[in-house]
C-alpha cells in the first residue's frame, strides 16, 4: 500500500541503494510516457510530411488543456484514494473511484463536445494557418472523440499507482506505447490514413491498455473492484478531488498558455514549419526532462523521511546524489542536442527546411541544458520536505514567470531566435533563483539547526 507504515529503512539503508530502488521504476514509467509522444511525431514526420509535424505541434496546447482537465480529476483522486487505502477504508476508496469515473466521463464528454464544436477557431488561436489546419484538425478530431478513453485510461493509471500496483500502472503504459508503435505504421503506411492514422493508433492503443487495466478493477477479489453501488455521487468527495486537483490543473492551463505563445511566436516569425521544428525540439528535450522527473520521484520519499527524522546529512546526501544524476542526464541531452542535432532530427524528418529550423532551434533551446537538471531537482526537493509553496514558485519561474516576458519581448528584437532564446534564458534565470534559495536554506540549517523542525510546512 502506497504510504502505509513509512519504512524506517529510509533512515538507515545506504542512500545510493535507496535512490536506485525508488527512482528506476519511476524513470522507466516516465521514459515510456515520453516515448509514447515521440513515436507519433516520428511516424507523422516520416510517413505524412513536414507540415503534418507542424499540424501535430499545433495540437500540443490543446493536449495540455485536455491534460489539465485530466489532472484536475486524476491527481486529486489518486491522493484521496491513497489516503483512504492507507486507512484500509476500502469502501470509501471505491466510492472515490466511482466518483472519479463519473467525473471523467462528464468532463471528458463536455470537453469533446465544446472543442469539436469550435475546432477551427480553437486551432487558429493555438497557431494553425490555412496550410496546417487540415493536419491539425484531422488529428485533433480523432483525439477529441477518444478523449474520454484517454481520461479514463490516465485516471485509472494514477489510481493503480496509488493502490499499490505501480508495476501494473507501468505495464499499462508500456502496452500503450508498444501498441501505438506497431499500429502507427500499420495505419499510416498500410491503410494510408495519413495523420488520422496516427490519431487512430493512439486511441486504439489506449483502448486496449484500458481494457487490460480493467482486469484490476473488475475481479471481485480486488480491493478496488468496480461495482454498481460505487457510482453514488458524493459532494464531499468531488469537492475534495477538485480542491486537490486545482493546482495541477492551473499548472497545465499555464503550460497550455505558454505553448500557445510559443507556437504563435514561431508562426509569426518563422512560418508554419518553425512550429513543426518546435514539435521536434520539444519531443527530444522532453525525453531528458522526464527522466529527471523520474529521478525526482525517487528522491521524494528518501528526502522527505530523513528530513522528518532530522537526519540532515542524509537529506543533503540524497539531494546531492540526485542533482549529480540529473545533471548527467541533462548534460547528455546537451551533448546530443548541441553536437548531433542533425542526426536526431533526421529521425523525425528528411525535409531540408524543417531539418535546418529544428537543428537551429535545438542548439538554442538546449544550450543551458546542463544546469536545468539541478533546477528541476531543487524545485522538487522543496516539495519533498514539505515546502510546497517554494516548490511551486520555483517551477513557475522556469515554466511561466520568466518564460512569458521572454516570449513577448525577445522576438521583438531577435525574431525567431528570440522565441527560441526565451527558453534557455528563462532556464538560466530560474536556475539562479533556485540556487540562491537552496543555498540560503542550507546555510540557515547550518547556522540555526533548531530552525529545521520549525520549518513552515
Amino acid at each position: 500500500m502506497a504510504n502505509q507504515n513509512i519504512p524506517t529503512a529510509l533512515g538507515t539503508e545506504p542512500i545510493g541503494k535507496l535512490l536506485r530502488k525508488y527512482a528506476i521504476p519511476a524513470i522507466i514509467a516516465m521514459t515510456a510516457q515520453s516515448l509514447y509522444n515521440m513515436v507519433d511525431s516520428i511516424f507523422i514526420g516520416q510517413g505524412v510530411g513536414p507540415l503534418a509535424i507542424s499540424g501535430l505541434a499545433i495540437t500540443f496546447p490543446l493536449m495540455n488543456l485536455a491534460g489539465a482537465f485530466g489532472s484536475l480529476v486524476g491527481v486529486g483522486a489518486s491522493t484521496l484514494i491513497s489516503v483512504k487505502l492507507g486507512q484500509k477504508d476500502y469502501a470509501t476508496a471505491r466510492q472515490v473511484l466511482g466518483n472519479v469515473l463519473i467525473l471523467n466521463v462528464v468532463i471528458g464528454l463536455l470537453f469533446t463536445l465544446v472543442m469539436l464544436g469550435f475546432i477551427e477557431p480553437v486551432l487558429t488561436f493555438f497557431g494553425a494557418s490555412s496550410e496546417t489546419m487540415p493536419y491539425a484538425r484531422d488529428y485533433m478530431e480523432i483525439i477529441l472523440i477518444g478523449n474520454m478513453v484517454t481520461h479514463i485510461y490516465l485516471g485509472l493509471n494514477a489510481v493503480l499507482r496509488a493502490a499499490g500496483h505501480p508495476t501494473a500502472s507501468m505495464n499499462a503504459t508500456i502496452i500503450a506505447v508498444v501498441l501505438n508503435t506497431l499500429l502507427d505504421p500499420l495505419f499510416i503506411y498500410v491503410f494510408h490514413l495519413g495523420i488520422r492514422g496516427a490519431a487512430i493508433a493512439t486511441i486504439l492503443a489506449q483502448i486496449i491498455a484500458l481494457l487490460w487495466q480493467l482486469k484490476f478493477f473488475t475481479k471481485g477479489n480486488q480491493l478496488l473492484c468496480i461495482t454498481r453501488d460505487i457510482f453514488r455521487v458524493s459532494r464531499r468527495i468531488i469537492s475534495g478531488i477538485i480542491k486537490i486537483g486545482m493546482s495541477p490543473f492551473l499548472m497545465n492551463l499555464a503550460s497550455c498558455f505558454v505553448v500557445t505563445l510559443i507556437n504563435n511566436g514561431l508562426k509569426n516569425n518563422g512560418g508554419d514549419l518553425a512550429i513543426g521544428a518546435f514539435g521536434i525540439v520539444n519531443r527530444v528535450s522532453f525525453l531528458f526532462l522526464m527522466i529527471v522527473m523520474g529521478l525526482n520521484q525517487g528522491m521524494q520519499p528518501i528526502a522527505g523521511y530523513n528530513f522528518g527524522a532530522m537526519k540532515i546529512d542524509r537529506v543533503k546526501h540524497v539531494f546531492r546524489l540526485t542533482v549529480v544524476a540529473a545533471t548527467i542526464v541533462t548534460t547528455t541531452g546537451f551533448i546530443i542536442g548541441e553536437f548531433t542535432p542533425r542526426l536526431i532530427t533526421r529521425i523525425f524528418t528528411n525535409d531540408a527546411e524543417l531539418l535546418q529550423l529544428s537543428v537551429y532551434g535545438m542548439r538554442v533551446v538546449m544550450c543551458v541544458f546542463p544546469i536545468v537538471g539541478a533546477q528541476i531537482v531543487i524545485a522538487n526537493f522543496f516539495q519533498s520536505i514539505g515546502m510546497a509553496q517554494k516548490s511551486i514558485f520555483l517551477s513557475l519561474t522556469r515554466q511561466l514567470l520568466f518564460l512569458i516576458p521572454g516570449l513577448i519581448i525577445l522576438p521583438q528584437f531577435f525574431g525567431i531566435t528570440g522565441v527560441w532564446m526565451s527558453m534557455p534564458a528563462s532556464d538560466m534565470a530560474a536556475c539562479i533563483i533556485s540556487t540562491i534559495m537552496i543555498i540560503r536554506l542550507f546555510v540557515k540549517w547550518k547556522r540555526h539547526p533548531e530552525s529545521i523542525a520549525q520549518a513552515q510546512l
Partner: protein
Amino acid sequence: MIITIARTFGSGGRQVGELLAQKLGISCYDHNLLSEAARQSGINEDFFRRMDEHANNHPITGGLFGMRFPFLSGSGTTDQSLDANTLFQIQSDTIRTIADREEAIFIGRCADYVLRERTDCLKVFIFANADDCVKRVVNRLQVDEEQAAILIEKTNKQRSKFYNYFSSKTWGKASTYDIAVNTSLLGIEATAESLAVLARQLKAKAIQR
C-alpha cells in the same frame, strides 16, 4: 475498551477525557499521542505538532484559494513527501498500535474514524454552550472574550476540515458518534462520571458476550 472523544474548542472535552481515564484506570492520549507517533516512526515530534489536526499545512495559500497543493511532478501523488497525508497516516498507525496494546482514551485526531472497525469502541462527541466555551478559553489562554470567540470559531473550523477531509464523514454530526454530550448541562466532573457509567455498562455487556 476504547473511547474516542471528539470535542469543540473550549468545551472541556480534554478534561472530561482525563477524568474519565482516571475513573476507569486507563491512559488518555492527547498531545502525548504525537510523542508516541514520533517515537514509532523516527520522525521528529515537532512536525507532528505542526500538522496536528490540520488537514492543510499551507495556511496562507490554502486559506486564500481553499486549495491543497500536491504539486504536479508527473507522479500525481505526493503520498511520500513529508506532508499532512503522510503524517496523518503515521499518526493513525500509532493510534491503532496503542488500541491493540491497551485500553485507552483518544482525544481528537480522527480516532473514531481510524478505529471504526473496532467493536469495543465508544465514540463520544463533546460540546458546550457558546458562553461556557468562551469563559473556559479566556481562563485557560488569558485572552479577552472577543479573541476567545474568534479562536474558538477558527479552531472548530480547522478541526472540522481536518476530520471531514480524512474521514469523508461530518465532524459534529450526531450519527458520526455513539453519544454527544453538552458539558454545560452537568459540568465536567458529572459528565465524566456519566460517561464512566456508560463505559462500564458497555464493557460488562461485551464480557457477557
